[in-house]
């Protein structure tokens, strides 16, 4: 089997994310879940305005999280 030659200049950097990133991620997912539950339940409660406010809030939080994650990954 041919032995792979690795250049001394090539290396893989594994950076461990700090613990609070995981906590923030969980909070983000929880908040989206909470807002989505309230949105769906408000629709069941026949409260259209409340449902719309919750859906919009969920969408904004979701989008904000995706954008922040994308920007962080580009650093």
């Amino acid at each position, binding site marked *: 089997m041919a032995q792979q030659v690795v250049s001394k200049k090539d290396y893989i950097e594994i950076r461990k994310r700090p613990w609070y990133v995981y906590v923030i991620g969980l909070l983000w997912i929880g908040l989206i879940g909470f807002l989505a539950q309230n949105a769906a339940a408000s629709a069941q*409660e026949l409260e259209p305005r409340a449902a719309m406010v919750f859906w919009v809030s969920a969408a904004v939080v979701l989008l904000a999280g995706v954008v922040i994650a994308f920007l962080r990954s580009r650093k």
Partner: protein
Amino acid sequence: MLAGKKFLGPQTAPTPESRGVPKWTGTPEEASKMLRAAMRHFSAANCGFTVLDENTSKLIYSKDPDGKELIFTDEVKASETDKQRFIPKSCKCVMAYTVQMSPETMRRSPTMTGGQTTTLAYKRAENIQASVQEFLRGLGYQGLGESSTNALGIAPAFGVLTGLGEMSRLNRMISPEFGPMVRVFKLLMDLPVAVDKPIDAGIMAFCKACKKCAEACLSQSLSLTPSPPGRCEARGTTGHKAYFEDSVSCMTSWREKATTNCGICFGVCPFAKKDKAWIHEMVKVGMSVAPFADSFFRSMDDAFGYGAQASGESWWNLDLPEYGIDSSQPVGAV
């Protein structure tokens, strides 16, 4: 079940004596638990218990709406004549219970759709009262009920004493579970039960900051005072903590403006929520522990469009459960 309210009940269920068996016996706690289960089965929303003493006996009327005197007696059996109703002193346990009303019809007040909401709850209560009176009779006890709508005693007061809710700016009882969307009823009985205590869920404190019902009232009949005055000058009543409404202008508005029952104050109340969205329970907790945030909660209630009145026409297109109520909603006391 037999419809129509009667002080003594239908009196048709076989008694333990007629069956040749002893009357039911158990601890007061067992009796309370049994009655709570039975009342939910009979379609009451919730129930609570208290005992008549020298003070709370004042909440029993001296006369019923039909003019018959209500008299406490040392006799063991309750009875009734053409002019009087006799309440044995042994019937000192009071059960207050609530019957849910449909929020979707009430928020359409004042229309005929909204107006029948209370009527329907009263009709259901007739069956509930007759059912529990017969249930008690079958156990070997007496249940003395309302001879007609709102007879016997002051229902909201008993609702508060039994921990079913708190008084509010709309001068009705508001329960933590169903808000103002309940009617309150009461029954006297000689079955010893474990009594409940009044609650403080932050409801009356919230009313200080809210005023939504008073602002929506068609006839400006509800009080806008910041705190419950504790005294109603017009009626000369003192000693109970309540906001007072101008009943005369309210009823006049019913007849002249609305031409049907009103109920806007019930429909717009921030407590008149269904329990599906998690946010409601969180807000309730917030209200009870952080009354300084009540104004914020009221503002958010407006922003989210809660309490907005709906058109009577749109009700016909809704797909609602029986009686328009959610009977699966749990209650804290059960």
